[in-house]
């Protein structure tokens, strides 16, 4: 099922939402992903990833209250859904298992 899969960039985005705490929005997410990957990330790819994540049900968005620093404009804020968190954890566990296997293989 398409909804179960998580691409690399989507994973970064999802984890960034989680790391920044709930109710974060596109700009901090872009800055965070750019910082941890150390490569230039366009805001368009962040939007696209967030949209896809939302379609898959891994994040949920709501419109926030208007804030003064953005000229009184409201913004779309994101939180990770339980299913998003579970999928990310599963992915992490798979990676861990593989790395463990590699390390053990390297020892022998």
């Amino acid at each position, binding site marked *: 099922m398409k909804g179960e899969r998580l691409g690399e960039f989507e994973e970064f985005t999802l984890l960034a939402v989680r790391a920044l705490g709930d109710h974060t929005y596109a700009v901090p997410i872009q800055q965070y992903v750019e910082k941890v990957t150390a490569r230039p990330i366009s*805001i368009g790819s962040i*939007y696209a990833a967030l*949209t896809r994540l939302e*379609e898959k049900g891994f994040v949920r968005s709501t419109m926030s209250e208007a804030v003064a620093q953005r000229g009184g404009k409201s913004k779309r804020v994101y939180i990770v859904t339980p299913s998003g968190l579970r999928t990310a954890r599963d992915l992490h566990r798979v990676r861990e298992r593989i790395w463990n296997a590699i390390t053990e293989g390297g020892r022998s």
Partner: protein
Amino acid sequence: MTEPHLPLVARWLLRLSSVPREARAEVQADLRELFEARRRDRGAVHAHWRLYHDVGSLWLRSGQIMQTPSPLSVLALFRDVRGDLRYAVRLFARQPGILLLTIVGLSLGLAIATAAFTIMNAAVLRGEGVVDPDRAPGVLKTTDRSTWSVWQYDEFLHLREGSTRMQVEAVFTDGAVVRTTAADVDGPVTPLTFVSGGFFSATGGRVVTGRSLDRADERRADSVPVVVSFVFWTARLNRDPQVIGRTIRVGRASATIVGVADRGFSVPHNALLWMPMPAHPAVYNSGPVQTMDDRPVEVFGRLLPQVSLAEAEAQLSAVAGALPRGATETESKLRVKLDTHGGLGRVSSAMTIAITVFVFAVIGLVLLLACANVATVLISSAITREREMGVRAALGASRWRIVRQLVTESLALGVVAAMIGFVFAYWAMPLIGVMIEAPAGADLAPDLHVYLFLGVVTLVSGVGAGLAPAWHGRGADLVTPLKGEGARQDRLAPGRLRSVLVMTQAAVSVLLIVVAMLFMRATFRAATIDVGFDPAGLYSVSAGLGDSTTDFWTRGFSELQSVPGIAAATLVEVPPFGGGIKLSITRDEPHRVVNLNRTSANYFATIGLRLVAGRTYTRDEVAARAPFALVSQSLARAYWHDQSPVGQMLPPEIPLTPGSARPMIIGVVADAITARLHERNAYAIYEPLDPANEKFGRLLIRVAPGATGVTELASQRLRSIDPQAEVKITSIAASLQQEASRPRMLAMLTGTIGLIAIVLCVIGLYGLTASVVGQRTREMGVRVAMGAEPRDLLRLLMWDSLRPVVIGLSLGAGAALLAGRVVVAAMFFGVSPHDPVAFVAAAVILITAALLAVVVPTRRAAAVDAADVLRWS
């Protein structure tokens, strides 16, 4: 504000990108935030470079950005719709009055539409169940002069024998009392259909259970098989599962049910029971000696595969031309005409179209009215809800989202109304069936088509009524309503749209009321039509099965002689208002129809027809089957103008039975309307009743004024001749009453709808006026402050509110003129469709109602206190 803006080029590029409009502001804010941060950290050049990089990324990822979960996601849609519904319920709960009115209006509309559609479905659309009717033409008998739809039974046998290109079958109908159980004492006369053996295979009729009839049934002498229709099985046999083999009494015969026809198979004329033709003598107990040869039958056929209509027609014409007693010197050779629209009593296609157009026009009007009313209510509430819509839009609701909310609301209303409407229609259907005199065999139970119709109509009206306010809200200014009320006088659109709706309602109401008025006038007119004879004290006597004994009436006459109070008695083939034999004179322009009746000598004295010229036929002449005829005054005038027709032959244009001699006219009698009241046809020919056919006739008796108990005594005497006789005495005056009540029914029907229409119109108008007046309170205040009198204000407001009604009134009157002329002229009994009384009355009713609707809110507004209003604003 001193907010820095994005560089202009970036803003333009963003606007040209495919980022959805509702997301653009947010994207712009994001870009600016990033731009500021980068300029702060890494300088302007870097910030610009990254900005255009970002904008470019938005261009590249067209369609994937910032969309609310795709509207195609069913789950999300469902969740949203549920929210919409919950919201709608809350909203409606706040205004239960309006909700109630709307639902009542809409469900009445839907109920009427459903009922009308059910009738049309049963009468026209469903057909009678003939498979591939274009290959099953009626077989008509023609000469150079005339066309007949009936053949004699022996002629049919020859045709069937000689036909090589098509399967030829025949059918005729009769009636008898049918008893399904021994306890069934007396019932109405049920129509019976007698068919030739291949009837079912030629029509394609199938059975639900058991078998249909076939050629072998024609030869079976020991038992009488009968196939019952689905309607009969349901209504009279309670869907008995063990129905096959069950015996029912049909007339004097015990018939065995061999099959139940498919639902929807009812050829011809909503048939209930089908029996083989040779069973006819058994049903009427006339013994095997009686010959069927003279029996008129309708003939139709099924073309064999790969045979064209013309080919079959030519082949059958050759057979008909060689018929032993077909041609005489006065008539040219007999030919056959195959008519795919005639035969089997099918409604002619022109008639079908007329009915369909009329019914759909009524359905359309009523629905339009109901929708217009719902739309008016929704728009009124949409205007008061403009603020809410503004808030929704400001919070990021797309136009689609708001439209969906409105459509969901009206659809919810529609569904509730549809359910109520359906229950109402289902309940009222038998009543309406009686009203429109639906035949007993008509299947008025709803079928799939009706459900589909209701579904589609609900959907269309629901979406339509919801889209009206949405359309009205197009391009709406979302900010002004947030600031407060009263700043919207410059926008005329909503007022105009609602004016159009009120106008529509007024037009529809006028149309319906005018038609109802015309029907009402027709009712009075029908009651005062001079039928040319006195129906009071006149009774028609049918003997049911007694007619099998040929001398029944002869003996009956002598029995009745001794009954006191019977002033006169006569035999007649067709009693007044009992239908009749019609001859169409197709050669004449305009097309004329002449009623033919065969009577015994004292018919004219009995019903009281005045002799205008010549003489009537005598008893001896009747007994001798003299070739004499009498014509009505109108007919005489039509053919002989000022000359006397006495002594002339009946003109050859008038088709009579081929082979019989042309009768000579010996007298002219006064005009009388005896066939159908609404036809008011005074063209009539009277011929002596052949003594051999007396048994098919009816007895007419005139009871002397003041005599009582005569009919009871007469029926007792007649029963004493033959105990099995089913003597039925009906009053001719009552038949006339029934004929005359037809327009009353229609008047009631259209009148009720018209009243509903007016009520709906008044509601709509009240709503419109109240809200327009409310919006103009400040203007009124200013006018008062400038010195306007309350009277001036009243006049201004009233005229503004009544204008759409006046326009609608003229439109509706125009439509009524057209409708009256096109469709219903036949039912008006001579009341002109331009009858001024009906139009004036309709206008007065509507204007009075409209005035009442307008005056209350207007007076309130005109009494405004200028100081109050101005201080308040």
